[in-house]
């Protein structure tokens, strides 16, 4: 996302592939690839926070929950158009992200991880607290439900728009300020960069992205928002996706999103250990393998391969 728009050729190729896929895939597979699109949005957002501004969050599932519930409740109570609920989720999560970013200013590393972890744990409890408004354990059913194809289109359109938005934000002065804060707070301050502004801004933007992903996520479960769907595993999935992605290249984020979007589905068909445990075990193992094999994520791997080819 840095510098020039990544080679227009590869973007066009990806876009065409994604546009053609639904006509060749079964409905089940369409929903799988739609799932990847949903994670693309969330991973892209978290990448701005971790990769660019150098902050961590194990709590982005919480923002997905807030986005998803925002959409479901608006749809249930006011039959609001889903596009409008998406914009609303974006705005609400942006503001909440800024607010979460404020206390996060005083924390770093492991403490920030713990604080955001607490967020991931506590937000899914809110529907149980306010069960009349948020449906309790039973969840909230949106008024509108949509087809797999619709979700597929929505997920990848959001991906494209938000990728472009991220590129616009990150390519110049603001993106450099994020990375400066990540590399040296002292030098960033001496260069006139207000740490609190840029750190909270990164939180706000990445939370807004998670909010949109949350709306799509709820649509993909027949418009049904349920507290259990937004557990800590979801937050970890986004974080792992961002780790696989590395530093913000289109290919890296695609790889990260595909990894966390597809693997849990694929790994349910493991023999012997059964579907439930198979999913957890395979996921865990792959995570360890990825961390070992791709310390800088998929983007780092690509860079190393390119260096090899040139040498």
């Amino acid at each position, binding site marked *: 996302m840095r510098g020039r728009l990544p080679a227009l050729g590869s973007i066009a190729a990806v876009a065409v592939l994604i546009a053609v896929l639904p006509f060749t895939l079964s409905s089940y597979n369409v929903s799988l690839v739609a799932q990847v699109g949903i994670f693309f949005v969330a991973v892209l957002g978290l990448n701005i926070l971790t990769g660019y501004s150098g902050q961590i969050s194990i709590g982005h599932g919480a923002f997905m929950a807030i986005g998803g519930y925002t959409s479901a409740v608006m749809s249930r109570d006011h039959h609001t158009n889903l596009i409008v609920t998406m914009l609303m989720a974006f705005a609400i999560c942006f503001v909440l992200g800024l607010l979460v970013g404020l206390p996060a200013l005083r924390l770093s590393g492991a403490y920030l991880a713990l604080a955001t972890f607490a967020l991931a744990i506590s937000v899914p409890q809110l529907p149980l607290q306010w069960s009349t408004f948020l449906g309790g354990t039973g969840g909230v059913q949106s008024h509108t439900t949509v087809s797999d194809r619709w979700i597929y289109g929505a997920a990848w359109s959001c991906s494209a728009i938000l990728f472009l938005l991220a590129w616009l934000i990150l390519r110049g002065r603001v993106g450099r300020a994020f990375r400066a804060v990540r*590399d040296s707070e002292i*030098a960033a301050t001496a*260069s006139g960069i207000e740490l609190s502004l840029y750190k909270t801004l990164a939180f706000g933007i990445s939370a807004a992205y998670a909010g949109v992903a949350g709306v799509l996520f709820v649509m993909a479960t027949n418009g049904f928002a349920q507290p259990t769907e937004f557990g800590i595993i979801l937050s970890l999935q986004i974080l792992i996706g961002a780790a696989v992605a590395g530093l913000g290249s289109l290919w890296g984020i695609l790889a990260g999103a595909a990894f966390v979007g597809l693997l849990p589905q694929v790994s349910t068909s493991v023999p012997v250990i059964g579907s439930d445990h198979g999913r957890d075990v395979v996921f865990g193992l792959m995570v360890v393998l990825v961390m070992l094999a791709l310390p800088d994520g998929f983007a780092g791997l690509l860079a190393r391969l390119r260096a090899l080819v040139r040498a």
Partner: protein
Amino acid sequence: MALLTLDQARLRFGGIVALDDVSLAVEEGSIAGLIGPNGAGKTTAFNAITRLYRLDSGDVIFDGRSLRHTRPSRVVRLGIARTFQNLELFPRLTVLENVLVGAHVSSRFRRERDVRRDALETLAAVGCAEHANRPAAGLPFGTLKRVELARALAAKPRVLLLDEPAGGLNHEEVDELAGLIRHLRDERELTILLVEHHMRLVMQLCDHVHVLDFGKTIASGIPAHVQRDPAVIEAYLGGELAA
């Protein structure tokens, strides 16, 4: 008129008084030296001026206004840029990007293309243009010191604080650096405060020298006088000044 003043600046770290009622004034357009043995409080003075450290008492006055309530990130916006003794670069940014971050306060609402062109020119002015697209991490110390200088210049400051710019340079390179600093001062109408152990550089460049020892001012004046001051010779044990 003095552009930058420390007024009765006092700062202690536990038992150590790093700045003990230090008053110094830097005339507009001059090159002033701040010298003293290790631990004298020179870097602390820079950190106090740039508001990284808060003074216990006393004040920093820039262009007639107190910086007592100025946020650290505002200092460069007002016109004071600095370099660091032990380098504070952005290792994962390229050399050019480091300079572009330096232009953060001077590039608002400007076109990216123009900002980049200026940054490249600034890099060329300090002789680092050929490293523009390399990551900052991994370049030699002396090169990185000049990259930091370029980053500070990119802010288009009025005052430049240089903390040991000659660190890691040989004799020849030090003379070259002296020429560069003087040239920058003239061309960009800068006022420079320089911390340096390299006495040749200080004596060559400075219009005025201020000497600290254990946080206290022990001498202040033109280089020729300061060099012969018994208190200064005593502080340095005759060593570095004679060289």
